[in-house]
């Protein structure tokens, strides 16, 4: 954590860091690695980056292993097809060499490395060094690494990618982050989510891909080599976040930055919202109903206790116990005779 003189300054610094990456500022991060899984796909994050890039006339190239359809403003390279690694690099170069500033997105680094046998170094040299553009790669963490048959001692692909990346963004579902936090506060084991968790046959959690937004665990590697880690919350964008698109452009520019630190999110900080979800777990388990209904609560509120009466104007009616006979009461004469 950066030594900041006060909280506001620290927050401003942290927001500045992520904002530079999301807005693709020059030299902010030549190679951003995005790690996602089925619990939180990276598509909201990527869309946000693409919209911001397109609004500033950046040439967006998507090397796609996972989708056959694309937006007309995006240069779509269908990498799933019959491309060899060399052809793929050539077509990437063709698509970025004419423009000044480009953004190249690989939507599955797993396929790029394992299937097309492209060396990440070569791709990085091409995009970031030769054309001074930004490279963003997505790696699905729930894909299993394919063992290298030739060199069993080669490091796993993901480790190499993490080593090379200048920024690593890990996507997490907001609902899962809240659940983990709630468990931690109660010293309970943290819940696990995802494939093969829970019952057989579950592929995706119901709380996965929270529509409220996406939690990003970011690690920035500064030029000095010093890493900084922060956790952010990127809410789903609204139309009012952007200016109207000027003619000839597809998207308007961003009005103001809306990514915040996770600790600034009200839903994460206050205990009320998450308490509602876990309140049921706090009650002791019993076959008796220990709670009160609304009617019972109202009746209880209505009872006037003796000492309230004693505080009235002239001191009430002394120390006598006031009791009104109910109709079910049976008057006991003998009791008064004592």
């Amino acid at each position: 954590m950066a030594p900041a003189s006060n909280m506001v300054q620290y927050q401003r610094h942290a927001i500045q860091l992520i904002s530079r990456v999301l807005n693709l500022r020059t030299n902010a991060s030549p190679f951003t690695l995005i790690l996602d899984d089925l619990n939180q796909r990276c598509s909201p994050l990527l869309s946000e980056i693409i919209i911001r890039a397109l609004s500033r006339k950046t040439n967006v190239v998507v090397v796609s292993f996972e989708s056959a359809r694309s937006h007309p403003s995006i240069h779509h390279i269908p990498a799933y097809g019959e491309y060899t690694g060399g052809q793929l690099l050539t077509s990437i170069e063709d698509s970025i060499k004419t423009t000044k500033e480009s953004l190249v997105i690989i939507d599955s680094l797993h396929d790029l490395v394992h299937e097309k046998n492209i060396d990440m170094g070569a791709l990085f040299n091409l995009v970031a060094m030769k054309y001074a553009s930004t490279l963003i790669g997505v790696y699905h963490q729930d894909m299993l690494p394919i063992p290298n048959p030739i060199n069993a001692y080669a490091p796993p692909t993901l480790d190499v990618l993490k080593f090379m990346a200048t920024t690593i963004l890990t996507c997490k579902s907001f609902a899962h982050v809240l659940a983990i936090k709630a468990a931690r506060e109660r010293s309970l084991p943290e819940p696990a989510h995802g494939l093969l968790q829970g019952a057989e046959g579950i592929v995706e959690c119901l709380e996965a891909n929270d529509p409220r937004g996406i939690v990003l665990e970011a690690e920035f590697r500064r030029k000095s080599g010093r890493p900084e880690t922060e956790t952010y919350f990127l809410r789903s964008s609204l139309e009012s976040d952007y200016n109207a698109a000027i003619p000839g452009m597809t998207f308007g520019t961003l009005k103001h930055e809306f990514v915040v630190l996770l600790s600034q999110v009200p839903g994460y900080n206050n205990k009320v919202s998450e308490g509602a979800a876990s309140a049921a777990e706090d009650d002791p388990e019993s076959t008796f109903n220990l709670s009160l209904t609304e009617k019972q609560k109202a009746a209880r509120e209505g009872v006037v206790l003796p000492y309230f009466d004693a505080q009235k104007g002239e001191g009430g009616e002394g120390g006598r116990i006031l009791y009104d006979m109910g109709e079910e009461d049976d008057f006991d004469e003998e009791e008064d005779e004592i």
Partner: protein
Amino acid sequence: MPPSSRIPPLLQPHVCLPRDDSILLLTSTLGASANWLITRFLGDALNLKSGADGGSEGAGRIEDGEGCNVLLVSWMREYEFWKQDCRKGVGVDLERGRREGRVVFVDGLSSLFLEEENPENNARTAVPVENAPAVRSVQSLPARGPAPGRMGGLPARGPPAAPTTTSPTTIRSGTTAPTSTSHNAGCYSLKSPNLAHLKTTITTALTHLTSASPARKTLLVIDNPDILLATNPALTHTSITSLLLSLHARPDVAHMLIHLQADTPLLGIHTPPQPLEVAQRNLLVKLAHMSRRVIGVRVLDTGVARDVSGVLRVTENDIGFAGLKAHGRGEDGGEGKRREMLYKVNGDGSVKVFERGAGGEG
């Protein structure tokens, strides 16, 4: 009963196809078959007209309201099964659709591994084979069509004892599947787990559909392509997804519904990982990443119940950049599209879908 009403109202929004072209993933486990769900999809796709007034949920239908063609590729069941299941379950006549050129079936079960040299020995699957001109090529795989004497009639498939009018002869056809005019049955069959052959066959079938009804787009239903991973160790998950995507890239294919197995033994990871586990899991995960909607059926977590067949879980996601817009990600894919329900498949093929605790008997 109009066919559209055979689809339970709770299920309807999840069975109707999204507006944008997309990939849908369906997973099932050994104890909970998803065949009933596939037939619901078929029923919805083929019956859009009658179901168009079936409520506001129909907003996501194909633009011209004409429904879509269906190309069903199945490695686990034969045509006869789907025909009966569709008729029983949703009241859709696949046979009629096939005659009208709206339905094409690709059979991956009956003759996937047949020895092509001596087909006479395999009397069980003796099927009439079209007398196409013999072309030898790398993809030397026989293609099958109806016998000349049975044109327009029922397909000579199904019951093993079905008498065949011609002695079966295996003709090797080339990479181009038969295009002769006598091939109007709309039934194709796969003769090899080879992907190139699969692609050729599906492409031919698609061409057949498009030529018959060019206005409509096609729903491609692919039932259990993971069989290929298990039967052909040389295949990787990427080769299958590449094939699927290159099919999806065709302009006449609107949606793809892919059915995979999600049983733990297929996905569970031993150390060292077994090749099939890695392949199956990567295929499932990758397809899930590619899919707009993931529908999983599984058995009841708490054990067997008389009035519940299983649990149906639907999760909807906004993926890809085709519908990129500056706002509202997650608005339409919100809470309403992520839910879990129980279902009960009755003996007569009808299905009840209900919320947890709502009871299946009522």
